[in-house]
């Protein structure tokens, strides 16, 4: 989503993105004219008149689970995005929690009194 019009989105897809990704980017490219939605999400830069690099993960209950905001000069890391989505999905499915650096396939933690002071024993990444 950017403040560009849907016409510009179409040109970007046809002129550039479709040459980098086979078949083009499959996601809806949203046009946030005037940054009205960006303002509600707290990532609209009034001085520049554009949305900065905000990224939000929303779960099936429509709750925001994660947000990441960067200034315009540094791009995102899709691997970290996927790791976070998989961690939230694991937590949702199992009720376990995922410690820092957790990767899909690694054991997660079962929160509770018996874990207090014992994380060092069970979490050895």
């Amino acid at each position, binding site marked *: *989503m*950017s*403040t*560009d019009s*849907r*016409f*510009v*989105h*179409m*040109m*970007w*897809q046809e002129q*550039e993105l*479709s040459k980098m990704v086979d*078949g*083009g*980017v*499959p*996601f*809806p*490219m*949203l*046009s*946030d*004219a005037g940054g*009205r*939605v*960006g*303002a*509600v*999400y*707290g*990532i609209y*830069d009034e001085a*520049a008149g*554009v*949305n*900065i*690099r*905000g*990224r*939000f*993960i*929303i*779960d*099936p209950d*429509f*709750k*925001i*689970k*994660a*947000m990441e905001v960067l200034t*315009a000069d540094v*791009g*995102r890391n899709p691997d970290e*995005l996927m790791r976070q*989505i998989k961690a*939230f*999905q694991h937590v949702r499915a199992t009720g376990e929690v995922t410690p820092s650096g957790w990767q899909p396939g690694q054991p997660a933690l079962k929160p509770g009194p018996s874990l207090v002071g014992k994380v060092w024993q069970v979490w050895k990444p």
Partner: protein
Amino acid sequence: MAELKDSCVKPVRGPIAPAASPPSASTTPVQEVQKVTARVGQDAPDFELSAFIAGKGFQPVKLSDYKGKWIVLCFYPGDFTFV
């Protein structure tokens, strides 16, 4: 590709205020300033925007139509830049 006929200006709803928002003071101005309402753990602020979708063309997209799925919203400063 689907029909791409479209007018130059097509109104969309933009941010959609929660239906349950209570009416505040009677002197509330008609046009309110958009407040930041996105917070982790809270409902995602809903909206409807026009979109380009590869293979489908132009169509409005409402965020809450995707309720029940995992959604990633990605904002970036402009087309023809990196994300």
